[in-house]
């Protein structure tokens, strides 16, 4: 069983969200991936600091994309902490009263900003999953681009709320260390090169139950990202946890709530 935590509607052919979703699923079928979690719209690079109309439209595209494949695709809502009230309203619209099952925070604001505390508390009440993009770029992060250390600070203020550290910080040797002492933080393995040793170190330092497979398709290849798990010298049980079981477990409460078959 393979569930992909990290998929997008861009970087793949198709004129409509539905066409792109069907393309993603075509490749998922070839590679044996059962479920895809999708977030961000058809062209998400319009702005790093999207206005409410912008992120609402992107969420509409995700809702449209997954609507025909509820058994294969799930979606997260994209929010911008710089528009706190609008983000809280969007949580209600998309998660409480809509089909989405979590949130994605990208590079609009650093995640130790206090608006993020309010957002994740609300999402946790709804049992939604929280995914935060993180990077450590030696060349310098974007203004609003969080590091795993900033996520660790947020995590320590909310030890009961599970958080996902997207990209493991890219520079995973630093990223794993940064969140190591936060048991409520899991790493997302998608969206960086398939550098050998990542999964071995993560299992060693975090345990297999804190690692979640994701790809970052269409910008990445399913193969390069799957290889990090299937090519790692870790046990078969660990691989199964990482490839799907951990994510499924994390999503189970909200799927039950929404009556979506896990």
């Amino acid at each position, binding site marked *: 069983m393979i569930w992909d935590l990290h998929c997008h509607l861009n970087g793949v052919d198709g004129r409509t969200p539905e066409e792109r979703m069907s393309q993603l699923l075509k490749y998922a079928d*070839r*590679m044996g991936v059962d479920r895809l979690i999708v977030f961000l719209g058809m062209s998400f690079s319009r702005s790093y600091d999207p206005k409410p109309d912008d992120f609402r439209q992107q969420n509409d595209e995700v809702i449209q994309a997954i609507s025909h494949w509820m058994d294969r695709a799930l979606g997260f809502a994209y929010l911008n902490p710089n528009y706190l009230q609008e983000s809280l309203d969007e949580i209600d619209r998309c998660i409480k009263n809509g089909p989405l099952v979590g949130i994605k925070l990208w590079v609009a604001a650093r995640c130790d900003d206090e608006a993020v505390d309010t957002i994740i508390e609300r999402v946790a009440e709804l049992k939604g999953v929280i995914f935060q993009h993180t990077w450590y770029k*030696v060349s310098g992060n974007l203004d609003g681009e969080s590091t795993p250390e900033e996520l660790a600070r947020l995590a320590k203020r909310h030890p009961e709320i599970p958080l996902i550290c997207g990209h493991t910080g890219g520079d995973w040797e630093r990223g794993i260390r940064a969140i190591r002492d936060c048991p409520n933080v899991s790493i997302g393995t998608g969206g*960086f090169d398939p550098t*050998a040793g990542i999964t071995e170190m993560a299992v060693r330092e975090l345990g297999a139950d804190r690692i979640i497979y994701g790809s970052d398709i269409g910008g990445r290849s*399913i*193969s390069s990202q799957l290889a990090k798990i*299937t*090519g790692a010298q870790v046990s078969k049980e660990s691989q199964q946890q990482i490839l799907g079981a951990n994510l499924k477990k994390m999503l189970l409460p909200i799927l039950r709530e929404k009556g979506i078959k896990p």
Partner: protein
Amino acid sequence: MIDVNVSLFQWPFRRLPHDTTDPLVKKLKNAGVTQAWVGSFEAILHEDADGVNRRLAAECQQKGAGFLIPFGCVNPTLPDWKEDVRRCQEKYQMPGVRLHPNYHGYALDSELFADLVTECHQRNLIVQISLRMEDVRTQHPLVQVPDVDVKPLLELLPKFPGLKIVLLNSQRSLRSPLVTQLAKAGDVYYDFAMLEGIGGVGKFIEDVPYQRVLFGSHFPFFYFESSQLKLKESDLGETIRSAIAAGNAEKLT
């Protein structure tokens, strides 16, 4: 399968799961690789280039004769580098060289590079150029090495008909239309170790004739499975798949 992008010995900044030769050979053979073109991780920082090449040749001979095919390191900023080219071919019987212009500090529009290419062309050596070894965003803070700019090859290649160039780890920095233009300008081949994007290989052969695409893994720096799975991710059909997996590289040597 012929894997044209493998390295032996130790990456300077991290131990890798397969950075000793016996397990590396075993892993490749189990995966169906019949021949691996190998450079040395030592090549990027060592200045005793012949020491690097001598160890590489000996290791290939001892641990994988006929299977590990050594590609030597030449750094044209070093004194008497032509002797390294000569030894690569005559002494170590290498079919080509693997260049790291970014780590060695010269540009492809420099006279040094033109001289090096002239030498390799005369000797009919394959010239592999590694555009990067890792994501520039995750490099060691004190060793930040930019990608190789291969645009100058457009002007250079027509002067060296028949010169075989293999660009390794190119796709994260090299985009169309340059990738198409280079393939037209000369005998330029590409591996796909760093090719990303869903269905990437299938899309790449819309930009470059499939005859110019070679299987390369950047193993053991990358998990080998990455490139292996890419051949499955795109629906290539058997003719194209087998040409990319081995046939194209076979014709090169």
